[in-house]
């Protein structure tokens, strides 16, 4: 092809000036995107993915500078453009979509104004501009664009905002579209919608796409080619299929192994992890950047920097031993992490739990009539879109918010008081939590020693020598060392902070630990280590987990039972395997179908339209009927179905009989593990 490349980076090096020293962030990155091609860039946080995106339009932060190489957009050298030409390039040929659409849109301007502005810049004005704006909103599949034009960003849901952001990015008909984690903050169902949209637009438009994501599955579904970035270097490149099915760099191999795949469960073995850390920015790297974390590394790897070996078929790998990459030994032995829980009386029994908030004088039922039970050593996975009541349910259990009168929570056969303050010391320490965001959960003014000692003192009732001894055990049980005790949380990485949070929850030998999205802020390699840790602690201490996550692969790995929540109601409850392999509730079916999968073995695709309705005004009848792909008729709109037992221990809230669901879902969306 003689056509000019949409984007061509040659030996691009970028440095950030930190503490008076230039620190290399990108090191000689070579990358080419052909016209109309979608190129995925993956890697853990800190690899330099976003820096690539920012360099392309020279939007680097003030302390960042391009220290070498060249960037060409459509054959034009971006480095040589003067201010005016650069402005024109940004306005006319490149567009970016960022992670948080809420921040990309101006909160005080109506959507219509923000869109027409782009056309006005291009010289179109008045009615013509607003016609074009409506056409753009139609393009991104927004129904009723005229009314959306009149709204402010905060009046739109996250998915709608991201559609608008994409419409704005496409308004100038760019030749290059840069998507930086465009679906990261969104629910799986919304993510699926946005990804579908991007996929459709690719076919309609000619734009080339640079797609940046930490989520390998998303990239594998969206992109033609993929590049793996590590420590600012491209370590592997090739067609998406080749790279994910036949990786040739140990880093790619290891990354892929960290993900719980194909319905893997905790009792089938540990997840693999990547030991050690990414080299800090600006570190001098003598040999291969990955050598310190690579079990295949030899003396040669530590002294001789590997070139990008060409492997044929457009494949590149920066590894001396690329032909052996897949024989990378496991970093974590696969030996069984968890044992199946014994048949014991339930540790937790929740009956008819309700929580009603008042919202503008109207009752808002955040949790409605939830009953679950959990045995010692079991994990209950809570799944559902945001707004489905998962976190409220967890807070009710913890006593942080009192439930409505009437329901009951029993811990080991004893009634738990609704309010935390009226629970006994033993009950308080028995139910603990690991929060989603360790930065919020750990007091940033306190040292790790203070945080953990205080927990041991209050929850374990320990003092003096015994406390010190137990502290030592506790720290080692989450695989931290003495060295970590003296520091403040901000001096630790995300994964280490989360270990501290886990240690704190385990300080008083809890019976139940609520894990509220404990790994969603972490990279996949760190996530795997945290999941292994949770599974190990569970099998050793017979503790039960309430595990909340939007990542169904992660929930499946750790859970013995699953409760699917929608608008505060349990739509389906049962053993993990039964819920995942089906037949399942149509909502569960849709959730599973929305998950991007690494191996593109899609059979049926079910997409939920619109967003989750407001809990202040839930639909009549079955609350799910407004979005249900399998609605059978008037009965769904008028009568709320009962949570009926489908098989032993597996209940589904649906009018469709179980046998019929089984028939409808015959070509299963997920194969049993």
């Amino acid at each position, binding site marked *: 092809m003689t056509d000019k490349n949409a984007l061509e980076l040659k030996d691009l090096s970028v440095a950030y000036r930190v503490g008076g020293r230039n620190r290399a962030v990108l090191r000689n990155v070579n990358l080419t995107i052909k016209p109309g091609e979608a190129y995925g860039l993956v890697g853990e946080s800190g690899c330099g993915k976003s820096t690539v995106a920012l360099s392309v339009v020279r939007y680097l932060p003030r302390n960042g500078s391009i220290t070498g190489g060249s960037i060409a957009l459509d054959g034009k050298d971006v480095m040589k453009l003067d201010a005016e030409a650069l402005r024109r390039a940004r306005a006319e040929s490149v567009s970016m979509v960022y992670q948080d659409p809420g921040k990309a849109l101006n909160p005080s301007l109506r959507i219509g104004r923000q869109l027409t502005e782009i056309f006005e810049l291009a010289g179109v004005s008045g009615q013509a501009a607003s016609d074009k704006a409506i056409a753009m909103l139609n393009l991104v599949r927004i129904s009723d664009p005229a009314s959306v034009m009149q709204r402010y960003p905060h009046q739109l849901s996250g998915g709608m905002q991201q559609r608008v952001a994409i419409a704005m990015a496409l308004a100038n008909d760019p030749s290059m579209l840069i998507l930086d984690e465009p679906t990261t903050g969104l629910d799986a169902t919304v993510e699926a919608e946005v990804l579908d949209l991007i996929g459709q637009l690719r076919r309609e438009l000619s734009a080339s796409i640079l797609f940046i994501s930490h989520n390998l599955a998303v990239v594998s579904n969206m992109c033609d080619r993929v590049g793996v970035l590590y420590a600012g270097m491209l370590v592997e490149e090739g067609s998406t299929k080749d790279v994910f099915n036949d990786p040739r760099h140990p880093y790619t191999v290891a990354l892929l192994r960290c993900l719980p795949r194909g319905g893997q469960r905790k009792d089938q073995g540990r997840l693999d992890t990547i030991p050690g850390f990414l080299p800090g920015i600006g570190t001098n790297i003598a040999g291969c950047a990955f050598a310190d974390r690579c079990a295949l590394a030899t003396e040669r790897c530590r002294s001789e920097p590997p070139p990008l070996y060409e492997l044929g078929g457009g494949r590149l790998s920066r590894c001396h031993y690329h032909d052996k990459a897949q024989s990378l030994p496991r970093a974590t032995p696969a030996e069984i992490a968890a044992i199946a829980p014994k048949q014991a009386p339930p540790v937790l029994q929740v009956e008819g739990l309700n929580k009603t908030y008042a919202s503008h004088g109207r009752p808002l039922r955040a949790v409605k009539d939830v009953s679950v039970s959990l045995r010692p050593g079991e994990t209950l996975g809570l799944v559902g879109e945001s707004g489905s009541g998962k976190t409220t349910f967890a807070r009710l259990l913890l006593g942080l918010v009192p439930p409505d009168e009437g329901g009951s929570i029993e811990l080991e056969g004893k009634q738990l008081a609704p309010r935390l*303050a009226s629970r006994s010391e033993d009950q308080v320490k028995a139910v603990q939590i690991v929060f989603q965001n360790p930065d*919020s959960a750990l007091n940033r003014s306190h040292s790790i020693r203070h945080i953990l000692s205080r927990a041991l003192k209050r929850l374990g009732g320990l003092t003096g020598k015994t406390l010190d001894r137990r502290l030592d055990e506790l720290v080692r049980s989450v*695989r931290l060392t003495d060295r970590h005790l003296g520091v*403040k949380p901000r*001096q630790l*990485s995300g994964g280490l902070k989360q270990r501290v949070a886990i240690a704190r929850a385990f300080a008083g030998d809890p019976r139940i630990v609520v894990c509220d999205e404990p790994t969603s802020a972490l990279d996949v390699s760190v996530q795997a*280590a945290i999941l292994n840790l949770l599974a*190990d602690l569970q099998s050793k201490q017979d503790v039960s987990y309430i595990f909340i996550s939007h990542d169904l692969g992660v929930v499946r790995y750790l859970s013995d039972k699953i409760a699917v929540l929608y608008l505060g109601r349990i739509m389906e409850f049962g053993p993990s395997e039964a819920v995942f392999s089906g037949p399942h509730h149509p909502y569960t079916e849709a959730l599973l179908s929305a998950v991007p999968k690494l191996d593109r073995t899609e059979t049926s695709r079910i997409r939920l339209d619109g967003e989750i309705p407001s809990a202040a005004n839930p639909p009549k009848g079955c609350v799910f009927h407004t979005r249900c792909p399998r609605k059978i008729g008037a009965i769904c709109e008028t009568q709320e179905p009962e949570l009926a037992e489908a098989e032993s221990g597996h209940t589904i809230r649906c009018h469709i009989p179980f046998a019929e669901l089984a028939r409808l879902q015959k070509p299963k969306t997920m194969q049993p593990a």
Partner: protein
Amino acid sequence: MSAADTPVGMPSPDAETRRSPWGEVLHSLLRSGTFLTGFGIVLFWVICALLGEHFVPYDALADDIINALAPPSAEHWFGTDQIGRDVFSRVIVGSRDILTVAPLATILATVAGTALGLLIGYFRGIVDDIVSRVLEAFMAIPVVIIALLAIVALGTSKITVIVVIGLSFAPIIARTVRSAVLAERELDYVAAAKLRHEGALHTMFVEILPNVVPPILVETTVRLGYAIFAVATLSFMGFGIQPPSPDWGLSISSNYGMIGGGFWWTVLFDALSIASLVIGVNLVADGVHGAFND
């Protein structure tokens, strides 16, 4: 249990490159021209207050009627006042009272305001509603009126001035602390403290307080500037520092009648001193604010 799961090495890959949060603040303060200039001015006056009497040419209180109202000269750099006291010597030692009263008032305001702010921010609800309205009502009364009432009730003394200014500034600090606490109490570490059955006092003072110190420090330095101004005003009005102190506000008050007669030097240098100290403190406040909000 596997060794490979253990994170080895330093706590974090780039731990060495990170300073502690306070180290970072200090670092940026020392690089801030604003802060250093202000600090220099304040330091000058503090040294004058502490050691001034040892190096001034005359006793600040010694009168010399024969040389009364002498204009600035080699003998008396800033001239002399109505009873022949050396204005230069008086200006140099005149910072002593204001530099005790204003900081003490500010400390009182900070302590009372912080405690109050933590209380209403932490408990919110009815406590917040009632206390906040009372504080707003209190803030609506000018300091001078409060001072008048207090002096009628308690008599004039430095303690009265400290209490009056401290208590009138406390609501302003309480309001700042309250809004910082409202943001903090929503963080999960506060929920974690509840899940350990920690008492309200522990949660407020051990968990939350260290995290709201930056806004408190900024507000305190800003208030110090206002306190200096307030002390000078009260002294000028005769409610503050009492004669025979060489205090600036007091000197201006007893000499400003002379300006009409052309004896400007009896007032100008005191006025400039007040201005320089207020500007110095405000520059420090600006620098501190910048260091915490960069």
